[in-house]
């Protein structure tokens, strides 16, 4: 059993309040941007591995807002040391969600990632000092677990077992990345600072 990215993003969009910041990357990025657009969204792109660090900084600087990080599994592996930082700093308002499809470049090449399906992200989160760590493999589990993520102090860690997407074929060639891919994070940072009332 597994959860589709669109299902996970839909549930998360319903859980977020008006003041919730979302930091997203990898497979969640296009879906959460479409389902739940907001100036309080920021993408970690092109910066694989950066989402949890950006989320930690935002959670510390904005303690009265929930900060939800939608991370990728291979991204989190790349910067796994950041989980120790989150445990150290223990921001009560941080919810760290990893979309685990056991894949790198999901939907494009579907390459295997290190660790395989047996790699236990929740065990790492618990050892790092997160307040809770839960793995959900079906949508009702995520729906049922959602309120506690919002209502109880974190940092919380959620591992979602995500369905591996179909990969590109010979008939769907890889596209050129547009300039906006490289300008997006900065533009979103400016928009978020505006929405937060931050002036520099």
């Amino acid at each position, binding site marked *: 059993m597994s959860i589709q990215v669109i299902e996970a993003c839909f549930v998360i969009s319903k859980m977020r309040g008006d003041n919730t910041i979302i930091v997203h990357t990898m497979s969640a990025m296009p879906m959460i941007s479409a389902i739940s657009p907001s100036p309080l969204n920021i993408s970690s792109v092109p*910066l694989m*591995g950066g989402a949890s*660090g*950006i989320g*930690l*900084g935002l959670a*510390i600087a904005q303690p009265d807002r929930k900060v939800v990080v939608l991370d990728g599994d291979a991204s989190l592996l790349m910067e796994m040391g*950041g989980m120790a930082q989150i445990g*150290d700093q223990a921001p009560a308002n941080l919810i760290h969600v990893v979309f685990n499809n056991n894949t790198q470049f999901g939907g494009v090449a579907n390459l295997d990632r290190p660790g395989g399906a047996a790699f236990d992200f929740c065990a790492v989160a618990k050892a790092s000092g997160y307040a809770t760590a839960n793995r959900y493999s079906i949508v009702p589990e995520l729906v049922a677990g959602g309120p506690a993520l919002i209502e109880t102090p974190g940092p919380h860690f959620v591992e979602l077992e995500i369905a591996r997407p179909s990969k590109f074929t010979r008939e769907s060639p890889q596209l050129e990345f547009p300039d906006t891919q490289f300008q997006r994070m900065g533009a979103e940072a400016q928009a978020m600072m505006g929405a937060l009332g931050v002036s520099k």
Partner: protein
Amino acid sequence: MAITDYAIPASALHDAFRVQGVNAVTTVPDFVQFALHDAMKSDGAVRYIECSAENQALTTAMGLYVGGMSPLVMMQNQGLLNCLNTLRSVGLDAGIPLVLSVGAFGREFANLGQPITKSQRACVNLVEPVMAAMGVPFFHLETVNDLPKVAEAFATAKEKQRAAVVHIGHYPAWN
């Protein structure tokens, strides 16, 4: 000059950064800047965040900055070379004007008073040209007379909307 003449008092560095509004530090601790680490960590008005790797020091600082705080990123030269892609993404593409305080780990004492590009050690002599190649403004502090460059680094980062490096050439003094 005596070797101690190259040791800028950590209190002066601390003050120079604090005057710029710094109220947070993200860091992978630097062998060179021990005295400045001590000064920053003991400052109750500074949120001091120890990071596992330099990439995380940069991304966490970005989150702090966007959220309204004024972070300083502290690392040593090897760490700077370790996080070039994140520096590219955060400090150039996204235009987050972070200031990095980078220590010249491994600099031979014979190089003090000389251009760091003349150091015999790659981790020392590569840093300035690599930053130049990336277009990251670079401000080298050799003696206490260079302290005004700290303010210049912050002003340049803000004006150009990109990261800037303050390079600490020798161990800061514990005063």
